[in-house]
């Protein structure tokens, strides 16, 4: 799996670099307009676009047909894409934390609480979107996958809104906002794991030509 991950890093390298630099620059730029920690909502979403660059490249070169003949199992192929997605999401968060950390040193209003809240929202949105778009990337062609990828973020925002409303039935969200979004993050993590398991099962039976 290490080799396949390395291949994806090579493919997405320039895109990852541009995203990380943009997030850092955007972080400083945003500080004059709104709370810099809000960048944590956008950062993992922006960073994970590189996964779809690698998926498009795989489809273009028919890499998936080739890699199955190598000592890499189908579950490892799927597992690598999901792992790559998580790595990029975490990298996005890390990139966004750079301006937040620096600005915090200069007494900008950045608290641990706001970082946790926006980080949870960003990661939840990204994981839920990935739960939808990653399995579809192995079922549809590259063009349809990109459409699904874009729509998955809208869908994940809708799901989060629904989860907030649902949580509000049991816990008043306004008073426990951090707890509510941590619950949503846990749900998103479970969904992402289930999506991975389902993708592996479906891919095991798929014909790759």
């Amino acid at each position: 799996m290490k080799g396949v991950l390395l291949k994806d890093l090579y493919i997405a390298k320039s895109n990852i670099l541009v995203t990380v630099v943009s997030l850092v620059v955007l972080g400083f730029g945003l500080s004059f307009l709104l709370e810099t920690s809000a960048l944590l909502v956008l950062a993992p979403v922006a960073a994970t676009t590189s996964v779809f660059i690698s998926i498009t490249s795989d489809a273009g070169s028919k890499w998936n047909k080739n890699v199955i003949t190598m000592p890499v199992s189908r579950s490892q192929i799927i597992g690598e894409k999901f792992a790559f997605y998580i790595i990029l999401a975490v990298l996005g968060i890390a990139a966004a934390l750079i301006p937040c950390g620096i600005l915090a040193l200069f007494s900008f209003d950045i608290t641990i609480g706001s970082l946790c809240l926006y980080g949870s929202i960003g990661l939840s949105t990204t994981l839920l979107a990935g739960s939808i778009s990653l399995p579809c990337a192995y079922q549809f062609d590259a063009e349809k996958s990109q459409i699904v990828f874009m729509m998955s973020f809208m869908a994940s925002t809708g799901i989060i809104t629904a989860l907030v409303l649902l949580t509000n039935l049991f816990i008043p969200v306004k008073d426990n906002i951090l707890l509510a979004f941590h619950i949503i993050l846990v749900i998103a993590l479970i969904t992402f794991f289930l999506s991975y398991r389902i993708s592996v099962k479906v891919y095991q039976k798929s014909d790759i030509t």
Partner: protein
Amino acid sequence: MNNALTISGLTKTYKDFVLDKVSFTVPNGSIVGLIGENGAGKSTTINASLGLIQKEAGTVSILGRKELDNETKEQIGVVFDGSNYPEILSPAKLNRVMRNIYHTWDEQTYMRLLKNFSLPQDKQIKQFSKGMKMKLAISIALSHHSKLLILDEATSGLDPVVRDDILDMLLDFVQDEEHSILVSSHITSDLEKIADYIVFIHKGQVVFSKPKDELTEQYGIIKCGASQFDALDKSDIIMYRKMDYEWQILISGRDKMQKKYPKAMIIPATIDEIMLLYVKGEKQ
């Protein structure tokens, strides 16, 4: 003799095509050529053997193992039509990727092959010609101590010089008796040069699986007119085809037939002609 690949009763059904109980073997130390027209089932056979598509029935044994696990895949080199490697990568980057995929990856062999084929290490694959891409794919297939090479239309679309380079490399590979090759190709002249056995697939079925020498030495074509055709013993005819001004009849046992029909003009049949007569001809 042990077989590197044994395919038995391989079946796969599509809406408009059936791969019907395909069976043949690739003996150790040999080159087996898989021939057939477009859509005959060559790629389906290879894809099903490699686990790319789910087979409905039949068994595939590769290097003595019925299960295609990672350990077995370490010993198989596969080359498809097209390079199937991300075009943004260079051969040097692919080296680092493959080093982390194959436990048996041999960097020295890979670099030597790149040098032999005059492939630049740091140029992106997208800047390579088709011939260069195929050479790269073959270099990768040969750089992890493969015992079985499977090539699916790997030489199609290449110029004769590049094809000749690749054929030489394949012949060199089977000098080791533990090495074997299954190669599917439209270019039967290539297979005539290198193959030990020919497997002919037509409409999803194996028509024959024979040693190449038997085909080229035993099979012949009688070219004659209608009266001569009528005079032939019909049990001697494998396939026949009526052309504009003559009949072409595929027979086997050329010498025997020449004695039986001393006036007939019997010419040796090429693999191309045998395939054409089976595909376009009629059975008596």
